[in-house]
């Protein structure tokens, strides 16, 4: 967020600021909460996990001599008797972006110490995530019903099903974990743990609305991954 105020240290902007922050004592990321720095580094690591998955997918798809299934046909959904390509995926994307937006607002209201608003928005985010997971379950069951399996599928290269189930499954796991934490944090916001600085579980750190931002980072990351999955699995 905007630059913090630090006693006895003038923060410079831009690359000069980067050099002086890095060269200074105590902290490198000025004013960044430990948990937030940890979440960022974790997300960096997680980016590498998803990158490795997607790179494997790319390599597998690029090197198969069998034809790859056409995604806009495989993922089409019948609406009023007409097959609409990627209809469900479009709705899922819509839901996930919506929940990302509510999360961003929750973070904003959290920092404004608006407990009610923050709590409702976190709850809305959790419900959006839950809807997404539900729709993904529906999509999986539809594909399984059509005969798509991790080891084979009626549309073309068998690797299609393998990569699809693995990567969307891994993403779905991330969403599900996020939903669980969103519900927990919604409870914690409403209970006022961040207003009165109640200590969390397993930690001696005092509760603070920065935790909503940390959770938000995770949630936006999940959305970010979906952007890539959407592009590479459904559109490509």
């Amino acid at each position: 967020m905007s630059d913090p105020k630090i006693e006895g240290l003038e923060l410079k902007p831009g690359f000069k600021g980067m050099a002086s922050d890095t060269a200074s004592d105590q902290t490198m990321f000025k004013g960044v909460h430990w948990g937030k720095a940890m979440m960022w580094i974790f997300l960096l690591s997680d980016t590498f996990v998803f990158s490795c998955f997607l790179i494997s997918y790319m390599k597998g798809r690029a090197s198969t001599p069998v034809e790859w299934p056409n995604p806009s046909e495989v993922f089409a959904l019948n609406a009023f008797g007409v097959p609409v390509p990627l209809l469900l995926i479009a709705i899922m994307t819509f839901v996930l972006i919506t929940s990302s937006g509510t999360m961003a607002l929750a973070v904003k209201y959290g920092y404004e110490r608006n407990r009610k608003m923050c709590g409702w928005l976190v709850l809305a985010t959790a419900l959006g995530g839950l809807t997404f997971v539900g729709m993904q379950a529906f999509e999986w069951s539809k594909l399984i019903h059509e005969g798509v399996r991790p080891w084979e599928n009626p549309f073309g290269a068998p690797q299609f099903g393998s990569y699809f189930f693995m990567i969307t499954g891994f993403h779905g796991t991330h969403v599900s974990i996020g939903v669980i934490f969103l519900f927990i944090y919604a409870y914690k916001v409403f209970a006022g743990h961040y207003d009165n600085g109640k200590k969390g579980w397993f930690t001696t750190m005092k509760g603070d609305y920065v935790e909503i931002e940390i959770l938000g980072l995770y949630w936006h990351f999940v959305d970010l991954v979906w952007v890539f999955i959407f592009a590479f699995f459904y559109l490509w």
Partner: protein
Amino acid sequence: MEETKKNQESTTHKIGIYLWIWGLLFVLSFFSYMVDWYQFQGLLRWSLILFFMFLKAGLIMAFFMHLFWERYALVNVLLWPMTAIACFVGLMVAEGKYTLFSRLFYFFIGGQ
């Protein structure tokens, strides 16, 4: 643990910026959906998909994840490792093509 209390007044932004980005994300998603709807093919399709993808990813990271407002020390630490990924991607593109070539060559052409 941290002096978050001190800098709390200065940390929030106007709600408009979030709503703008939110709207933009919907519009961009709609555009990338349209790429499929109109069945663009070939290089145009891929470049459009990648363009919208990176734009969306950039917006989410810059504004929803506040990277635009973070200090460069954090931003650079997060973005530089992506060069390793970029290298990996580039090499695997070449490798995928080579694997396909060797499969086609040795199984179909060279085998005869």
